């Protein structure tokens, strides 16, 4: 490497260090505010380097952790259930679509594809779910709608089509039926694509707040992200009341500014640590190539 190239590489690394800082600093700001003393915030505002460290926001949160634990539990539960069911069901429709003897293949492909083009919209869906299916305040409202994503079905199908046909044919001659071929051959051979789809589903559900906002009114069923959204709104309400001179008992002592950011850290932290480990699969899902209906 000559001197000029070396200089170029150093410059390039500096650019990336700045870009990385633009990503990391915002997260650090959340953490910094959450461990700043509340009195410092009223004096100096939010700062990247706290004057005085103070962990009382976290103490408050973990003194009554029921709300967070509930949200974590329910979010984890519906994310896992939906992930497993969705991958299974989407494979179940993708597999017949690869079979020659499956009549009406293109009709069913179009049936799925059309839902990507046109939808009834928010209001009809809302009325269906609340008044006909009665899924309001139910665990299943997180799981059932949006279970079959045509995009992922076609992605899985494309992968199934790439599997060597000889294997399932040999199994057929050996007397296996389609259920067995599907469960014992196709699924185990398709782990890469299924893992990618599973992760995308899980991520989508983990970050879900719309469902709670639309269909959940009982606090113990709030998803993690929606709980966080409510806290942003609620502390605002609290402040408004203080401004108008209506003092809430005990509300003044609560370090509201730092607590809010501490909640964001408690919600974002685990995801920030865990998801990057699966980055490889997310990237693979994007470069999987053309997906055709």
């Amino acid at each position, binding site marked *: 490497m000559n001197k000029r190239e070396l200089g170029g590489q150093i410059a390039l690394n500096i650019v*990336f260090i700045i870009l990385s800082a633009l990503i990391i600093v915002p997260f650090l700001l959340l953490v910094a505010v959450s461990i700043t003393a509340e009195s410092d915030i009223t004096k100096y505002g*939010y*700062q990247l380097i706290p004057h005085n460290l103070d962990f009382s926001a976290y103490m408050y949160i973990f003194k009554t952790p029921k709300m967070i634990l509930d949200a974590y539990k329910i979010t984890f539960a519906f994310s896992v259930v939906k992930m497993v069911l969705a991958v299974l*069901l989407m494979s179940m429709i993708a597999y017949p679509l690869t*079979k020659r003897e499956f009549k009406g293949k293109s009709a069913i492909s179009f049936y799925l594809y059309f839902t990507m083009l046109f939808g009834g919209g928010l209001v009809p869906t809302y*009325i269906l779910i609340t008044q006909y299916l009665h899924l309001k305040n139910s665990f299943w409202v997180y799981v059932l709608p949006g279970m079959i994503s045509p995009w992922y079905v076609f992605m899985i199908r494309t992968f199934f089509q790439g599997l060597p046909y000889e294997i399932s044919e040999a199994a057929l001659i050996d007397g296996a039926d389609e259920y067995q071929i599907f469960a014992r051959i196709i699924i185990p051979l398709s782990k890469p694509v299924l893992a990618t789809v599973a992760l995308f589903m899980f991520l989508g559900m983990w970050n879900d707040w719309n469902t709670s906002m639309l269909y959940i009114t009982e606090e113990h069923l709030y998803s993690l992200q929606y709980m966080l959204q409510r806290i942003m709104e609620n502390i605002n309400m609290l402040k408004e009341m203080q401004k108008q001179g209506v003092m809430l008992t005990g509300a003044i002592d609560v370090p509201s500014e730092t607590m809010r950011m501490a909640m964001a850290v408690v919600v974002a932290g685990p995801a920030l640590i865990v998801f990057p480990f699966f980055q490889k699969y997310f990237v693979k899902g994007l470069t999987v190539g053309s997906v055709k209906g």
Partner: protein
Amino acid sequence: MKTEMTMETAAQQNIEFTPKKKKINKNTWQLYSLAAIPIILVFIFCYLPMFGVVIAFKNYKYNLGIWGSEWVGFDNFKFFTHSTDFIRLVRNTVGMNALFIVFGIASSVLVAIFLYDLKSRNATKVYQTILITPHFMSWVIVAYIAYAFLNPQYGLINSIVTSFGGSAKDWYGDPKYWPVILTICNIWKHVGMDCVVYYAALMGMDHSLVEAARIDGANKKDIIIHIIVPTLVPLITILTILKIGNIFRGDFGLFYQVPRNIGKLYATTDVIDTYVFRAMRVIGDMSMSSAVGFLQSVVGMILVIITNKVTKMIDPERGLF
């Protein structure tokens, strides 16, 4: 003897034939049974709501139900298209999406080229991981981060501005800042993931081209202009067209969470998707909300079909269908 043989063979064939035919039937039936539950689920959650679009042509009342409510024809559509909201929503949705497309693609192409130029594989991996991280965060978290920067009283930006003698700005009180803020938030969240496609294209490029150009005395600038950019142009064209197909669909999370649903900011932050939500949940006008949603769906569908046709004309491998 001969007849016996034939009969035996025929019998054998018959024995073999019957169960085989039965088996094919059974297997085909099994394929249909696998597909059944997914097909029913799609019918319930995707097709049943499609019938609900009749609400857009009615004056929907809860107590009367969908079928009992009074027909009003195109009144809901007329009312909406003649209101001032209409122009604002179309302008914001299309305008903001256009900003996202232009700046989003420009920044992800730039980052991809930078990544490609990096020699150290380890450094590339580290930077890529960091850049992708925001993709894993929900819009709620992004809204918290934006708030930490923009809070008029305590926010980091105002602290910095005032410490340099500037005057604090009321970021959540003036809509004029928001096209820029939302564009930054959108790029911040998506650039790491969006640049992956371009980076993959560059990695798949024929490297001997670059080497040959270098030997012929081409400098970095020449290589970027004459080799790297032409490699990416087809991809950029197609992704842009596909994004134009969705230009009437606003990212609800971004437009609802980041501006924190503050009414003062609607002038620049209210898009079709947030309006449809508000019309339903806050105002409670189901028919109006439904009409706007239906209009968006139809226009969106037409655009997707057109852009898909165009994409296929350019690159037959890339179309969605």
